[in-house]
């Protein structure tokens, strides 16, 4: 496991290979696009993704929380994938056991009712903390720093013999700092490397500086 540290607009962040970002000064763990329930959703439609992978998301969350021991965990949207299913109940249980402050900044997939968890989960459309704006969708009119998700960024690396590898990445450009999708079985969207100010790719269990 190897992480990378980076500083944007005077704020210090540590990028973890599981896809999470630790905001040092705020003692906050930022996680985007977990898409809980996606595996179950596919299985409901007859696509046999190994059910053992469902627990995987929770293992990853526990690991990264144990690593940083944050005061706040903020989910930058798309925490849930679609209709409620068993994975949501697992999440409710997990929240209850966690006993920390958890905030969800709403995303387009978060349509499920949150009444089940309102005791454990703070829900808001966006969160302004000082000069930093936390949202799900990337904001184009942000003057300072917008940390967001939604895109599931990745970059394409070319090897010899027409080999190409797509790696999820942390992508910073034009005042937007986009986090990779945390969830285990999420798709990816290719970002142009040359237009970025900073790109960090996740390869195996390492975060690698690309530019």
């Amino acid at each position, binding site marked *: 496991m190897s992480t990378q540290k980076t500083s944007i607009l005077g704020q210090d962040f540590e990028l973890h290979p599981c896809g999470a970002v630790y905001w040092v000064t705020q003692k906050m763990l930022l996680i985007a696009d977990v898409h809980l329930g996606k595996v179950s959703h596919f299985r409901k*439609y007859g696509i*046999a993704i190994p059910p053992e992978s469902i627990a995987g998301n929770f293992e990853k969350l526990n690991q990264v929380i144990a690593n940083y021991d944050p005061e706040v965990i903020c989910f930058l949207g798309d925490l849930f994938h679609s209709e409620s299913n068993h994975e949501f109940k697992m999440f409710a249980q997990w929240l209850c056991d966690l006993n920390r402050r958890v905030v969800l900044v709403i995303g387009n997939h978060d349509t499920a009712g949150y009444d089940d968890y309102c005791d454990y989960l703070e829900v808001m459309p966006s969160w302004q903390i000082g000069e930093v704006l936390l949202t799900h969708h990337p904001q184009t009119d942000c003057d300072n720093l917008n940390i967001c998700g939604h895109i599931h960024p990745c970059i394409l690396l070319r090897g010899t013999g027409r080999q190409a590898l797509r790696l999820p990445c942390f992508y910073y450009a034009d005042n937007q700092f986009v986090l990779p999708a945390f969830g285990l079985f*999420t798709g990816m969207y290719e970002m142009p490397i040359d237009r970025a100010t900073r790109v960090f790719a996740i390869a195996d269990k390492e975060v690698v500086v690309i530019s």
Partner: protein
Amino acid sequence: MNRGELFEIAEKWFGEQGWKAFPFQKQTWTAFLQGKHGLLNAPTGSGKTYALWFPIILHIMQRKKEPGLKAIWITPLRALSVEIKQAAERVLKDLQPDINVGIRSGDTSSSERARQKDKMPDLLITTPESLQLLLASKGYDKTFRHCFAIVIDEWHELLGTKRGVQIELALSRLKSLSPAIRIWGISATIGNLQQAREVLLGPESEALEKSVLIKANLEKKIKVLSILPDKMESYPWRGHMGLHLIDEVAPIIRRSKTTLIFTNVRSACEIWFQRLLEKYPEFAGEMAMHHGSIEKETRLWVEQAIRDEQLKVVVCTSSLDLGVDFAPVETIIQVGGPKGVARFLQRAGRSKHRPGEESVIYFLATHAIELIEASALKKAAKNTVVEDRVPYLNAWDVLVQYLGTLAVSDGFLPEEIYREVKQTFCYQAMSADNWQWVLNFLVYGSQSLQAYDEYKKVIIDENGRYRITDRRMAMHHRMQIGTIVGDAVMRVKYVGGSYLGTIEEWFITKLQPGDAFVFAGKKLELYKIKNMEVLVRKADASRPVRHAAWMGGRLTLSAQMSELMRSELYSANTGSMTEELRALRPVFERQRRESIVPSDTQFLIETFKTREGYHALFYPFEGRYVHEALASLLAFRISLLQPITFSLAYNDYGFELLSDKPFDMQQVLDNDLLSAQHVHDDLQRSLNATEMARRKFRDISVISGLVFSGYPGQMVKTKHLQGSAQLLFEVFREYEPDNLLFLQAYRETFEHQLEEGRLIQALGRISNQEIVWRACEKPTPFSFPIITDRLREKLSSESLADRIKRMTAAYMKE
């Protein structure tokens, strides 16, 4: 009517056409009418179609008329159906006018399909996929009840592919539904004909015992003519695709009625078409192009135009390979090495292929070293040394799809189907555990029952039948059958409306609206992308353009071809050289300045340094797949000696390890790094194996329904189920590494892709040779194709040509 009387009718009919029945045709009629199964080994244009249509029609005359499907003719390519139908109708018109013939394939209209559902034609011509679709229809047992014959045409093409496995499974079902059915295969000559029969009929089966192998034995004289350049370049490279000889090709086209120019890849096909058109506009009205990505209407048009002798030249790929009776094709030109003897001979057979006439095929090497291939092909044509088609074993993905097909129509009882499947060649070694694994996969989506799991696909009904009852799932499954697996493709159409064909997604993503490119022989401008379709307009003729390209599967040199090539190469050291090898003298001379032309007792390794780094070249002449594996293997083993990373390159003749640091080749040799020991483990540990398995897994996941891919352009609301095979691979790797489909990807990689068996043999051969290591000052001619291939990745074609010109000039200075 007895057999004698039936034969009289047949021979009389032949006589009326001005023909005489061949011995192999009569042998086939006899065997068929005796109720036997069989494999007929007959090439294109030999009269194989009548060898089997006749006894089928005679048999109909023999018995009382029942309604419904009587015989099925399976052809792997839709293009052939029309020919086969016409052949049958010709006979029926005179002998049995009440009997009708129908075609059912992806090209069949929905109104025609509805008509067939109501009343099946007596004789049905269809594709392997459409046969599967028939099994996916409710009440299919009634459809096949009176079917007494099934003919699998071009069986050699299906053998060794997953479609061949689909046929094996379909036959296993048909044998139970219609116990009297006669199974016949028609195959071109391959190395393992007896095994081909075994695969068709089932190993150790009753059918196999009651079968015959009939060889048409028609001596087809094939003349191979190489188109040689006046001046041979000393440094061969694969840039111009043989186009520098286009002026040699034009006169050949002019003096023939029809010429087919075969290229190996679609992009070469497009480029050749374009250049011919530009340089020889006299051919303009009578020229066409044909390859797999061109819209079906256009392809059908081209095929018909060839039959009607309206075209003077057609540039094509293997898309026109299968045996349509294009009698008017006079000349065949093969551009670039065909990679396999059987393929080459088949193509040669396309020219003037009325039985008995000599076939002429021209070979145009795209770079000097390919002339060695030409030389080898000449020998091959003389001795008919042909490749085996290696059948699949334990293709779990196809089995999953097949069981889904049965579940979607009438459901199945596992014990019954298990017995049938176990008797096929592919699944003969399937264990009860394997079978149960597949059933669990279908019903539970897992090998262990999970609490709270909502998986639903195949259910077990109250009678113990396994079925898919969900209508949407059934529809998806039917759409999935016969999906052509390949890179994601997008349909290309004019803004005005008509479709041109399909292009691979990665190529389009490199373009911006307004960019121009050539596709389907036309200069087009990208207008915009909408709904997975590429909208284009005609581009200005004067604009600089790039040609559409495809990633498509590159063929490798077959084991037979590479053996022939090696022996040709070795003969360059003797006095007896063919005309092609003699033309290569300038290349050999320059090669011998710093290096050697290896003999059969030598294995050549070269090292040199350029501004790109330190090159190490190896020349096993064993085909690109084996070289890919060997390169990976060697790179891995060297990295165990010292920390070093390599860039790998390979082609059919050799491979290269390129590094920015020098390494000691002597160490490589002293440590016996070319040993055949531990190959399997080392291959597994080298990165490439995983990468390749990932790619193989893509096909497997589509076939087994893990990844849904509808047809391009079809408005299917399954965006929410779009998964990616890459992601799936990772999830399986981490959470279910003993999943049979996941393991299959690795198995296929080692057996088919890396050709592990062949690789080990190659290493064995090398260990008996003297290793000759030449440390050179600069690149040698043999290395040139490989090192310039790498530059192709980085440079545009103009700068590439430029760079190569400069390199050549520099190296020639001596």
